[in-house]
């Protein structure tokens, strides 16, 4: 990272930490004002991270998708962007999402910091337009699943608080409607599906094989199937919302493993950088 990137990275990390602590204060003391600050902090983090991405893109000559560090930062950017859209369109839901989203952003920034941050030139396999489609849909898909998981956490916490029913506690469905969670799952499933499809086409162009049962391909397909299963079960069997939310949180762990964890366990042709 050069100086501009370092400044942007650390500013974004600090802003996400500030958003986390202020939204935590707001939650604990049941005050609205800290949430307003938290919202501004996360908006600032998105702006600074955008500057980081642009600066890095200009410096290295390709979008920041290539290394594991860049993939994580891009996912954080998409997560912040999605949150920002929700925050603008549905203020109440955007506000309750501040705590989990800022926590996830802060944790991912920390994880990214532990990774090598040097930019690398594109290898022969990565020098393809499909990289941009494949990687951008992978990172945005993960962001959508993270939003759905965050809403599930809110639903579960809200349900716990309102059980037994109290006069002053909002029902969990108000803050994190199951329909919204389901919509984010379907949205994530589409993005993740584009990622798998574009990766397959790219692999065919690059090496002449469109599916090789590589660990990342396999875990991506497993994640996609798990979500497909979850959506079908929710739409059909109508099993308990609590279990739907719990399984949603487990499913996002599989997505994160497919995206960033497989490298730690398996040897894979999906090299970052």
């Amino acid at each position, binding site marked *: 990272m050069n100086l501009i990137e370092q400044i942007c990275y650390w500013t974004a990390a600090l802003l996400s930490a500030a958003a986390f602590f202020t939204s935590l204060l707001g939650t604990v003391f049941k005050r609205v004002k800290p949430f307003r600050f938290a919202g501004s902090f996360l908006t600032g983090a998105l702006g600074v991270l955008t500057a980081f991405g642009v600066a890095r893109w200009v410096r290295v000559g390709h979008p920041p998708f290539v290394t594991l560090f860049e993939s994580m930062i891009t996912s954080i950017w998409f997560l912040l962007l999605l949150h920002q859209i929700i925050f603008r369109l549905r203020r109440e839901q955007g506000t309750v999402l501040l705590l989990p989203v800022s926590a996830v952003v802060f944790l991912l920034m920390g994880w990214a910091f532990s990774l090598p941050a040097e930019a690398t030139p594109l*290898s*022969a*396999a990565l*020098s*393809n337009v499909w990289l941009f489609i494949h990687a951008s849909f992978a990172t945005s898909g993960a962001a959508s699943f993270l939003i759905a998981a965050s809403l599930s956490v809110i639903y579960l916490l809200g349900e716990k608080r309102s059980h037994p029913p109290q006069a002053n506690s909002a029902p969990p469905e108000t803050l994190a409607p199951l*329909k919204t969670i*389901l*919509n984010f799952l*379907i*949205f994530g*499933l*589409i993005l993740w*599906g*584009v990622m*798998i*499809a574009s990766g*397959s*086409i790219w692999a*065919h*162009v*690059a*090496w*002449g*094989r*469109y599916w*090789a*049962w590589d*660990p990342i391909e*396999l*875990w991506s*397909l*497993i994640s996609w*199937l*798990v979500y*497909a*299963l979850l959506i*079908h*079960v929710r*739409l*059909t*069997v109508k099993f308990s919302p609590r279990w739907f939310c719990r399984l949603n949180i487990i499913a996002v762990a599989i997505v994160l493993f497919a995206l960033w964890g497989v490298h730690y366990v398996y*040897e894979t042709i999906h090299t970052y950088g």
Partner: protein
Amino acid sequence: MWKFLTSLRLAIVLIGLITILLILSALIPQSGIAEDRIADVRQLLGDSYVIVEWLGLDRIYFTPGFYVILGLLAINLTAGTIQRFRVILTSEGTLWRVRRVGSLVFHMSLLLIIVSVIVNYLVKFEGVYALSEGQEVSDAADAYFRTFNGPLHKSESGRFTLRLNEVIIDDDVARADAVAARVTFMPSDGDPLVDRVIATNHPLKYESLEVHYGLVNGFSPELLVLDSTGSRLFAGFVRLATVSAEGRRRYADFIELPQQQLTVNLEVFPAKDGSETPTFQMSVERRGMVALDTIVTTADTVTAFEYRFAVPRWRRWCYLNVVENPYLNVVFVGFWLALTGMSVGLVSRVMPAGRGVR
């Protein structure tokens, strides 16, 4: 029966089974795919590994059970598609109908993907050439290093001749895929020959055939072994295996001469700029005793035990993959149709009920 075949509960069970099998295949190394990890798991499980083999868990994608589940899913999708079509025809409300159309397109596309993947598997051809520079081969079956013919693939030969002119390796870049190959493709039907460089992402296409650079490459030195009287015991180009270690490629292998009980280990050290002659590390063993371990050039002849060894010439070699997937584009069309269907479904879900409703 119809209700059972169209039921979403059946779909859930089948998707669940496929997911479980895929998770198992991710945990248990699959034969033919993750061969290098099989020995570790076999050692870990000991005698219990027999159960894994007996259940076919080490080759899940090739077990009849896996295909039965996929087949059932295809039947379920077909029946569900017909059912959805009926529902669309009878349903009220534009928005509801749009959502159903999205769902129909998505599930029909999944069916298209499954069917086209299976058809493609049945008719596809994959062949790997292991060629040294200057080598010319035809597409006869025995010219390939390895082939896979789909069960319904019509074997044709004599369609082309392929010549590997040059393997282009950038040794300063410590990446296994920073390689290209200059090839000449000569069609037998009188079409003009094609002379071009192929590399990762840049295959050569001819009708339904594609020639891809095969990722594996290395050095092929000519090893000469003479006995004390000067008679040739061995003379031939040896294809050295390529391994990546610590960010660098290593080209090393050994050759055994059973009659003389000799093992000759060779490793190549490429010249920095790629244009100069490389040097070779040669060691010679007999019954575990090392008699020689030295650096040689193409000008040297070295002696070990009562034999003389030389590496007078060298070439590069690489794999070239020839693939023929005639229906692959149908799979890809299926991908995009499925995603379009899902997107239509999602848009109709988030659209306010007042808009577009009849």
